[in-house]
């Protein structure tokens, strides 16, 4: 009788170890292979955050979102994360999209003032009404991939 119980304990322990090991080493979300939770225009997602930041956080943050928008500029100042900026509200609101460094060549090849379609993980809206130097707002997407 002792043998089956010992075997059961070993199997349960092994299962728990494997579960823990897999959880500890689970990969980050692979945006390219993840279906977007929603497809939305740059102006619409900006408006959602501008109207109600808290509700938009609950609805969009941590989710892979597909966004269409007008490319205003490429921002290549941070070599760790090349970025592009899409028009949000036409004056002081933007969608800031960060890419892995391996996307640099594709980003350089983009043309300003063209419409871009991409996917990325929504992180929220940056900028603050309380900080006068940072009153402009960016809805931020990370780990973006271009949809061609």
């Amino acid at each position, binding site marked *: 009788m002792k043998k089956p119980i010992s075997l059961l304990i070993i199997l349960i322990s092994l299962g728990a170890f494997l579960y823990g090991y897999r959880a500890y080493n689970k990969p*980050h979300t692979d945006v390219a292979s993840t279906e977007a939770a929603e497809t939305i225009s740059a102006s619409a997602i900006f408006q959602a955050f501008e109207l109600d930041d808290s509700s938009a956080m609950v609805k969009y943050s941590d989710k892979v979102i597909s966004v269409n928008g007008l490319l205003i500029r490429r921002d290549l100042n941070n070599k760790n994360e090349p970025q592009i900026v899409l028009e949000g509200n036409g004056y002081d609101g933007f969608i800031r999209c960060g890419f892995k460094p391996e996307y640099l060549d594709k980003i350089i090849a983009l043309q300003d003032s063209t419409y871009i379609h991409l996917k990325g993980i929504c992180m929220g809206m*940056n900028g603050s009404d309380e900080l006068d*130097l940072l009153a402009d707002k960016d809805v931020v997407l990370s780990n973006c991939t271009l949809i061609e």
Partner: protein
Amino acid sequence: MVAFTNHSGGIFKTNTGNINVFSHTAIEDITADNHKVKTAFDGTSGKLQFSALIKDFEFPKALMQEHFNENYMESTKFPKSTFNGMIENIAAVNTGTDGTYTSNVTGKLTIKDVTKEVSAQGTFTVKNGVVNAKTTFVINPEDYNITIPKTVASKISKEIKITVDADYRHAH
């Protein structure tokens, strides 16, 4: 008499600043980076501000990032950390002349809606019109209502090192 002209002045800004958070314990080192920090300073008054999205800190391991956001920082409820302060000796930072300048930076750091005074020495390196600012300071998570469960307390330091590194350009 020699007249010195300090070409400081105007607003310097970036949306691609770096903040690194680092925890060291005997068991484990934990590090995370945010490369989309929005920050600006006024070259005349010395006012310095930054705003960083908590969810945008990327950890090497997805599980660490999940715990950081959901368990410790509650980042859906408290999405941003902000700093509002001053470069104390802005007159010493000549943004018009290449060189390296130092000044204390003091101000209010807000994390999880808790605001505390912080102070650190900043190094400002001007080169070809770009002002690189670097500073490092240490915070205690408990000061900002960040509760670390006892089960993982031995893996997370009570002194979290924050390193800021940003390249500012003149805002037009």
